[in-house]
C-alpha cells in the first residue's frame, strides 16, 4: 500500500486589512499554493489571544500561522508590535509544552504581497510535513519529558532574571 502524503492542518489567524487581503489577492491572481491553511479573519493580528493558538493545537491543528501587516504599517497604528511580543512568549510556552516552535509562525504580508504570502504558506506546510502530525489531543501522556522541558525553561528564566544569585 502506498503511503499517503501527510497533509498538515494549519489554522491561520489573519488580520483583516493586510494578510487576509493578501490571501484574497493570492486567490484572485490564481497563485497556486498549499490549501492547508484554514483562515480565521480577525480585525488585527493584535486580536490573537495566545489562548486561541493553544486552543487550535488542542483541537488538533498541526500548525498555526499568524499573519499581519508589516511593522509600521498596522491599520491600528502599532498593534502588530504587540503581536510580535506575544509571538515570542507563545513560542516559549509551546516549547515548555513540548511542541516544536516551528509549528507556530508569524508572517508579515501587506495587501499587495500575495505572492509572498503564498510562498510563506508553502514553506510552512512543507516544514510541518517534515515534522509530521502533532496529534496533541490524542497524545497526552505523563512521562518525565514534559517536566524536564519545563524545568529547563524555568532555569533559563531564572538565569536571565538573575534570580537567586
Amino acid at each position: 500500500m502506498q503511503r499517503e502524503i501527510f497533509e498538515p492542518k494549519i489554522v491561520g489567524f489573519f488580520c483583516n486589512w493586510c494578510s487576509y487581503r493578501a490571501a484574497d489577492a493570492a486567490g484572485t491572481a490564481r497563485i497556486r499554493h498549499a490549501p492547508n491553511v484554514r483562515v480565521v479573519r480577525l480585525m488585527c493580528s493584535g486580536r490573537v489571544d495566545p489562548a486561541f493558538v493553544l486552543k487550535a493545537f488542542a483541537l488538533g491543528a498541526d500548525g498555526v500561522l499568524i499573519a499581519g501587516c508589516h511593522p509600521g504599517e498596522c491599520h491600528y497604528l502599532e498593534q502588530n508590535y504587540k503581536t510580535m511580543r506575544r509571538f515570542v512568549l507563545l513560542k516559549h510556552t509551546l516549547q515548555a509544552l513540548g511542541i516544536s516552535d516551528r509549528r507556530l509562525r508569524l508572517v508579515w504580508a501587506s495587501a499587495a504581497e500575495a505572492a509572498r504570502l503564498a510562498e510563506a504558506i508553502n514553506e510552512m506546510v512543507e516544514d510541518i510535513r517534515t515534522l509530521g502530525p502533532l496529534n496533541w489531543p490524542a497524545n497526552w501522556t505523563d512521562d518525565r519529558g514534559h517536566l524536564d522541558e519545563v524545568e529547563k525553561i524555568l532555569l533559563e528564566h531564572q538565569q536571565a532574571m538573575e534570580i537567586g544569585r
Partner: protein
Amino acid sequence: MAERIGVYICHCGSNIAGTVDVAEVTRWAGTLDDVVIAREYKFMCSSLGQAVIQDDIRKEGLTRVVVAACSPHLHERTFRNACANAGLNPYLLQIANIREHASWVTTDRQAATNKVKALVAGAVARVRHHRPLEPMSVNVNPHTLVLGGGIAGIQAALELADAGYPVYLVEREPSIGGHMAQYDKTFPTLDCAACILTPRMSEVGQHENIRLLAYSELEQVSGSIGNFRVRIRRRARHVREDKCTGCGLCIEKCPRKVVDEVFEAGMGYRKAIYTPFPQAVPKIPVIDTRSCIWFERQRCRACEKLCPTGAIDFDQQDEFLDVEVGNIIVATGWELFDCRRIPQYGYGRLANVFTSLEFERMCNASGPTGGRIVLRDGVTEPQSVCIVHCVGSRDQRFNTYCSSICCMLSLKFGHLVMEKTGAKVYACYIDMRPNKKDYEEFYQRLLDEGMLFVRGKVAEITDVARTPQEEGKLIVQVEDTLLGKQRRIPVDMVILMGAIEPRRDARETGLKVGISCSMAGWFIERHAKLDPVATMTEGVFIAGACHGPKDIPDSVAQGAAAAARAQGMISKGTVKIEPVVASVNEDKCSGCRICNNLCPFNAIDYLEEKTVSQINPALCKGCGTCVAACPAGAITGAHFDRDQVEAEVSGLLWDAHGDGRPATGAREPALEPALPQE
C-alpha cells in the same frame, strides 16, 4: 433554544463549482448540527440568489445564515443587507470564503472540497455564537479639513466650499499652489500653469467658506468620523495677518538675500522676508528666522521701520488652533528624488546636470533666468541637451514603481528646449509611456519636431573626454538597445527626470490621521479599484500624489472625488459606524490597567472612583488587542469575541478532532524534541 441555520453554497458560475464538488458539500452541510437548510445556487449574489435566502428566513424561520461564496470583502455587505431586508439582524450572518481561499488556490478537486468543508464547518460553528448588533449613528460635523494646498487640495476645498460647506485648508508653505505653481507649461496642451492655477488660488483666498491656514501644520488629530478634533500649529510668520496689506515694501527693502531651496529649487534667490512667488495666496509674507539678520544678530529691523501698517511682529510665537471637523482630506503631495543618490549621473558634481524641477524653474518666465534656457553659468545657451528618464524610478535599487509623469514631462521639456533654443534634444528612455488622453498625439508631435529618442538606461554621465569632439561636453554613456550598440552622446546640458517620491514625513502624517503607507511610502486607499479615494479610517480621504505618482488631471479628479465623498456624508447628516468595538464588563474588571497603554487611539479611560477601565465606543476602532490582553477576560470584542473565534477554530478543525484522528496515537512520540536553547 437551538438555532436554525441556513447554509448557502455559491457556484459562482464555474469559479467555485469548477474545482469544488458543491453538491457533496451541500449534502454534507445539511448534516451539521442545527443546519436546517443547505442549498446550492449558481450565483448567490444575484437578486434571485438573495431572494432564496430571504424566502428561507421568512418561511423557515432561520435564525442564522452562512453564505459560502467569495471573500467577505466583496459581498458581505450585499448579504447583510439581504438578511436585514428579510428581518434578520445583519450580524447574524457569516461568510465562508470558499473562492479566494479554496477554489482559486488549488486545482486539486479533492483538496479544494475538503478545505471548503472545513471553512463551512468553521462558519457554521461560529455563526451559532453571533449576537445581533446595531450600528451606531453619529452626527457629521459639516466642516472639512483639507490637508495640503496643492492642486488636489485646492480642488477638494473649492468643491466643498462651492457646495456651501465650510473648509479649513492647511498648507505647510507660506502660499498655496504646491508643485504646480512652480511649473511653466503643462503637458500635453502647453497651457501656462500659472494662468490656469492662479485664478483657482485666488478663488480659495477669497472664498467665504474657506478658512485658509497657510504656513501651518497638522499637529494632532483625535476623534473619529463625523467628529474629529484637530490641532493645527500656526507657525509664526512674524507678520500680522490682520494688519498686513501685502504691499511688498518689506520684501523690497529687506537687505538679506538667500538661495530659495523650496520654490526656486535652489535656482534662484529670495529675501529673508518673502512670499514664494508674486501671485502667492495669501499674499502675506513670512520672515525666515534662519536667514533674517535680526534673528541672527539682533540688528536691522528694516522691514519693521518701513511697514506702513505696523504689521511686522518679531515676537510672534507659534500658535495652536483647535478645530472640529467631520471629515479629513489628505492631499500632501510628493517630493522629488534626490538625484545625488546616483553618483554616476553627476548631479551636484557636474554643473550642467539639472533636475527636472530645476529645469521647470528655468523655463518659467517668472523664474530665476526669466525663462531663458541657459547653462549653470547663466549666459550660454546649450547646443544640445540630453534628458535622462527613470532616474530613481523603475530601478530595483531605489524605487521599483514607474513615476508615470516623467515621460510626458520629458516630451514637454523637449518641446520647450527646441522652441526656445533650437538645440538638439536627446531622450534616453526605458519605455515610452504616454498613455492618457492626447498624450500619444503629443509624443507623435515631438517625434515630428525632431526630438531624438534613444532606448536604453543611461550608465554614466561624465566630463572625461575621449575624443576632441567630446572636449568640454558632458558625455552620456548609454547602450542603445534598439541598435545594440554602446553610445557616447556629447551634450551641453543633462536633465535628470528624478522619481516622484512620497513626502519624507508621509508616515508621520499617516500615523496622525490614521492612514497606512505602502512599503514605498504612498498612502494606501481602501480598495485599489473600487475605492481609490477612501482610506481604512472612516472619514479620512486621500487625493493627489500622496497616493501615488499622478499628473494634474488625475490629481484634480481625485480631489473632486474626495470632496464628493465628504459632501455625501455631510449632506446626509449622520453616518452609521460599525458596531465592532470592545467593551468592558465592569463586574469582571479588576482595574489592573494593562489594557490602558495598549490602545493607540486612547479609547480606554480608567475610572478612578470605580477602579475599572472603560472604553469609549466612538474612539474604539475594534482591533481587539485589549480583548486579547485582558487577564480577567473582562473585555468583550463585539463580533470577534472569544467564544466566536474559538468556535470557528473548532469548526475549521472538524476533521482533526473527533472522528478525524485515532483516539490514541501510540506510535507518535508524546513529545517533540525541544530546540536546543542557547
